[in-house]
């Protein structure tokens, strides 16, 4: 347990440095703000829109008004309440799937890199096979064969999506494993688990964070796509099922845009925010992609040039 605590403190220190850099990135601030807003809406759903979102509250296909902020659905449900509760469900499944994928990815990617040899060969082969099998068709087929509960859909998403993050983590972990301090730890006689948790894991924290965010975005998006196709649990309210029912009600043909646009916009905004966050993490941790530093270099160059030109002017 002490390993874990010390590893956490190391991770926290490097995370704090990365965090200060992240707060200066506009993309990161935008992404984090949007994601936090949606998390708040999801958590406060019972306060923002009390009552059952599936309750019939008024006439069908009502346009937005003061009473029903986003109008009503083809069944007479309040769209605003559905979008709010949908946020809760979509994010919950997204985070569950994302966390599962990140854990599987870290476990498999790290063990492949650390143990090497035939374990690495077998695990890498497994990753590549899963990467090459097209995701969505597999998802559709698995969702068709398995029972359509939230848990099973989340399981299906994790099965189809773990390989990408595992591969990224493996390739980075490979270079970390070769560093001197890991070799030193091995020579001292540390146990493999301690080396993995204490020495390797902290250097991978930013990569793991970005794998986690990527997996959450994938989970939210794929869940919505599956539900839109009618392959999810249609008794729950989430962004995907809202869009499915809107499509079923041929809402765009009827011109009842309020049944279709809000849930889709929330989905787009969340996924975009997560991508922005990931892009910013990438920029902060990969020095070559950092634009801030580039600007600094240019300023220095300009100052030097100015100094060189001075004697001529004088």
């Amino acid at each position, binding site marked *: 347990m002490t390993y874990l605590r010390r590893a956490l403190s190391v991770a926290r220190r490097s995370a704090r440095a990365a965090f200060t850099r992240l707060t200066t990135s506009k993309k990161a601030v935008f992404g984090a703000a949007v994601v936090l807003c949606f998390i708040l809406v999801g958590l406060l759903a019972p306060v923002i829109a009390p009552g059952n979102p599936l309750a019939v509250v008024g006439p069908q296909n009502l346009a937005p008004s003061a009473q029903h902020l986003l109008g009503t659905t083809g069944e007479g449900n309040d769209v605003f309440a559905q979008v709010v509760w949908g946020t809760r469900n979509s994010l919950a499944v997204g985070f569950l799937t994302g966390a599962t994928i990140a854990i599987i990815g870290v476990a498999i990617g790290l063990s492949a890199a650390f143990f090497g040899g035939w374990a690495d060969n077998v695990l890498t082969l497994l990753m590549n096979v899963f990467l090459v099998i*097209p995701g969505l068709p597999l998802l559709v087929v698995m*969702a068709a064969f398995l029972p359509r509960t939230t848990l099973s859909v989340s399981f299906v998403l994790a099965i189809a999506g773990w390989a990408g993050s595992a591969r990224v983590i493996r390739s980075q972990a490979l270079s970390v494993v070769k560093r001197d301090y890991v070799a030193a730890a091995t020579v001292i006689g540390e146990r493999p688990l301690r080396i993995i948790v204490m020495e390797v894991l902290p250097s991978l924290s930013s990569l793991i964070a970005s794998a986690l965010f990527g997996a959450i975005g994938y989970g939210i998006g794929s869940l919505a*796509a599956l539900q839109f196709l009618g392959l999810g649990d249609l008794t729950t309210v989430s962004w995907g099922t809202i869009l499915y029912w809107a499509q079923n009600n041929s809402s765009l043909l009827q011109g009842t845009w309020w049944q279709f646009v809000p849930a889709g916009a929330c989905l787009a905004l969340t996924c975009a925010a997560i991508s922005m966050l990931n892009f910013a993490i990438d920029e902060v941790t990969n020095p070559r992609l950092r634009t801030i530093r580039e600007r600094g270099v240019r300023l220095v160059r300009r100052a030097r040039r100015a100094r060189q030109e001075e004697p001529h002017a004088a």
Partner: protein
Amino acid sequence: MRYLSSRLGFYIVALWGSLTINFLLPRLAPGDPASSLLSRMTGQLTPAQINAIRVVYGVSTHASLFQQYTTYLSQLAHGNLGISTAYFPTPVATVIKSAILWTILLGTVSLLIGFLLGVSLGILVAWRRTTLVDSVVTPSTIFLASVPYFWLATAAVFVLGIKLNWLPVSHSYNIDLIPSFSWTFIGDVALHAVLPAATIIAVSVGNWLIVMRSTMISVLSEDYITMATAKGLSPLRIALNYGARNALLPVTTSAGIAVGFIVSGALLTEIVFSYSGVGYLLYTAVEGLDYPLIQGLLLIITLGVLGANLLVDLVYVLLDPTVRRP
């Protein structure tokens, strides 16, 4: 050639893996294809016919899982994908054959245009980094790439197809026309492909751009670029012949994975646009619980993606002399 033989070995394992997943999936699921067909035809069949159907679908035989597996593999080796239950008694292979060309057409066109557009934009924003172009183009393509595809496609159908009535929004050609190699028919097919292809391109450009941008930026900080600048070569030549040419190599490796994404994207496209390709067929098969067709389609789609990846690997050998070492 060690590179190629190791890649070939990988594809054989991947093929075997996907065949096995394909075999196991329906057997893990509750229910079986024969009973879904039988329940639809209750009262129309004699016990002998029922038995015949069960034998065809391999569910009545008291064979062990392993025996079923070997039968399945030997049937596949003979190109026998079974018989569709929805289009009974048409063989699955025939049903798929009618749809596959449409998917290849739509997929290839949108993959090529998306690739060219994304890579050229990637070169541009990497070269003009720290300018307005990069800070406008990059975030907006990231945003487009992260918009859920089906939603973008449906919105495009609504705005461009229904409100403005500029483009046809469903099917792969006008059903009043008879398929032939005449200009009117080809033009009609092209017109019907505009909206589906454009939506795939819009979503995929961002991914190409991001990959190209980051590899290009790494390449631009190499010493030979500084050298080229010092020699006084024209910026355009440095950007294209020295930068982009070297940055393209890692991008091609990600092309294989992108093929998989395009196939996934094409699945949703075909469903939204009722485009008569394999994706739409898969959707109708899943809705109608046509298990043999579902299995056959998953197999064909996987084969297609594996084949495309193999092709990418071959191209890579042509592009990168270092992997050609014996």
